[in-house]
Structures are given as structure tokens and as C-alpha cells.
């Protein structure tokens, strides 16, 4: 799953590039070209012109609301002060103790909060 460039990705990228340019030119034609000219070409089945302005307006308001929504979702998913998630989690509960070897760096593990507190706040004289 590396982000390195691949031939398939180059083709997808170019197809998206052409597709987005085509979509943009089509949107401009639909929004600006008078109806009679379009009808004379035989293309009569278009959505209402109202949407040419409404859709960008909706999109911009949605992006603005998205900022507020993301902030709110962040606040809601923060663990409250009385939950055990502030102290431990599934991985820490299931961890296995590695044997202590002399003169080797101790293995990485989640230290229980009682031990951390004793180390920080109860200085050994």
C-alpha cells in the first residue's frame, strides 16, 4: 500500500483529469449558453438552470458546516473524565511480560498508571 507511482495510477490520474475538465466545460455550457441555442442542437433534456447556482452554494455551506461538525465530532469522541479509556485500553490489558535480561534495554510496554504516579510524585529520599 505504498504511495509510489505506478502505471495504473498514472492512467487513473489522467482519466480523472480529462473527466474533470470535460465535466467543468459541460457545466459552463449548461450554465451560460442560452436555451434556444441548446435546443437548436437538439439537446433539450437539461436540469433546471436554478441548480447551476444552487449546487455551488449548497457545497460551500456544506464545507463550512463540515468544519463545525468535525470539531463537534472530535469533542464528542473525547473520552470523558470518568472513563477507563483515559487509563488503559485493550492492547495494554492483554500485553505479555517479557523476561528481564541483564544489561539489555528493557522491552517496551505500557506502564500502569499507579507505577508512573509513584515515580513522578513520591520522590525516594
Amino acid at each position, binding site marked *: 500500500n505504498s504511495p509510489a507511482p505506478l502505471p495504473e495510477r498514472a492512467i487513473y490520474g489522467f482519466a480523472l483529469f480529462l473527466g474533470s475538465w470535460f465535466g467543468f466545460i459541460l457545466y459552463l455550457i449548461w450554465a451560460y449558453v442560452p436555451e434556444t441555442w441548446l435546443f437548436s442542437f437538439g439537446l433539450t433534456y437539461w436540469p433546471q438552470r436554478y441548480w447551476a447556482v444552487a449546487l455551488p452554494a449548497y457545497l460551500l455551506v456544506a464545507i463550512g458546516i463540515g468544519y463545525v461538525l468535525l470539531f463537534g465530532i472530535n469533542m464528542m469522541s473525547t473520552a470523558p473524565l*470518568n472513563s*477507563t479509556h*483515559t487509563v488503559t485500553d485493550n492492547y495494554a490489558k492483554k500485553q505479555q511480560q517479557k523476561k528481564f535480561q541483564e544489561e539489555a534495554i528493557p522491552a517496551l510496554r505500557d506502564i500502569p*498508571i*499507579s507505577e508512573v504516579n*509513584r515515580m513522578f510524585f*513520591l520522590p525516594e529520599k
Partner: protein
Amino acid sequence: EERRYRSASGAPIALRRRQHSASCRELAVRCPRLQLRSLSAATSAVWLAAYGLFVLSENSMVLSAAIFITLIGLIIYLHFVKIDQESLLVIGSLGIQVTSSYASGKESTTFIEMGRVKDVVINEAIHMQKVIYYLCILLQDPGDPQGVSEVVPLFQSSKPRLDCLIEVYKSCQEILEQRKTAPQSS
């Protein structure tokens, strides 16, 4: 004795420690009282808004409603919201009692027996766009002494800063250590 500290938001609080016996300690944190200036600011804001509504609507009931709302709101605030003092009573072999006393005199207590208490620690957590230190009691299931079943945060409305919390933590740990050396009695 009593010492002054600051809360997380900067308000002055006071910690009072009393030792009743070798295995019983009481730690009480007193919050600042309701300030006259904030009370008068809130009252004048409500009454000015009510007077503005009265000028717009020519209905004198708005004024009496505003007076009523102010009185009822003050009583509800003093009885349910404004905490005057939070205290922690640690009795060595018995348990921990947490008391909150409100400004109207109401007291609400919670007692946790020592068998359920795993430890009293200072934890740090994210609270309203800030990271705060708070003291909490870790509870354990009687059948599973290794796991933490519940976390009970203490001093929620006074929110002392780390220097005050370290004092409380040291006092509690001195008592909690005694239960390791003392023989367990069921």
C-alpha cells in the same frame, strides 16, 4: 492546617488537611464564594433585557416575570450548581468518603469501601480544549484485582492545579500504603 492554591482556571482555592488518627485523614478543598460583582452583573443583565422587552411590548408582566426568574434562578444555582467545598475522607481499613457541599448547605456524599479501591492516582486527560490534571480513584472488581473497572474523578468543580493535587496524592498514598503491610481482614 490550610494552604492557598489556584484552580485550573485561576480562581483561588484553599486546601485544608486534618489528621484525625494514624489511619484517618480528611482533605477539604474550598472553592471561592459567589462574588457580589458577578451576581449583580447577572441580575442587571437580566433586568435590563426585561426592561428592553417591556419598552418594546408595553406589557408589565415582563418585569414581574424577570424578578421571579432571577430569584428562582439564584436559588436553583445555589442549591444545585455552586459547590462550596469538596472533601475527601480516607479511613485506612474502611474506605473513602467523598463529600460535596453546595452553597445552600446541601451535602451529597459517596462512600467507596476499601475492598473496591485499587489506587488513588493523578491522571491527565483532555477536558474542553485543555489538558488538565485531576485526582481520581481507580476501582477494581473484587474478582479481578489486576484490572481497572471504573474511574471516579474527584474535585470536579474546584479543579485544583498540580501542586495541590500532589499534596493530596501524598497524603492519600501514606494511608493506602498501610493496607499492604496490615493483614487483610475480610
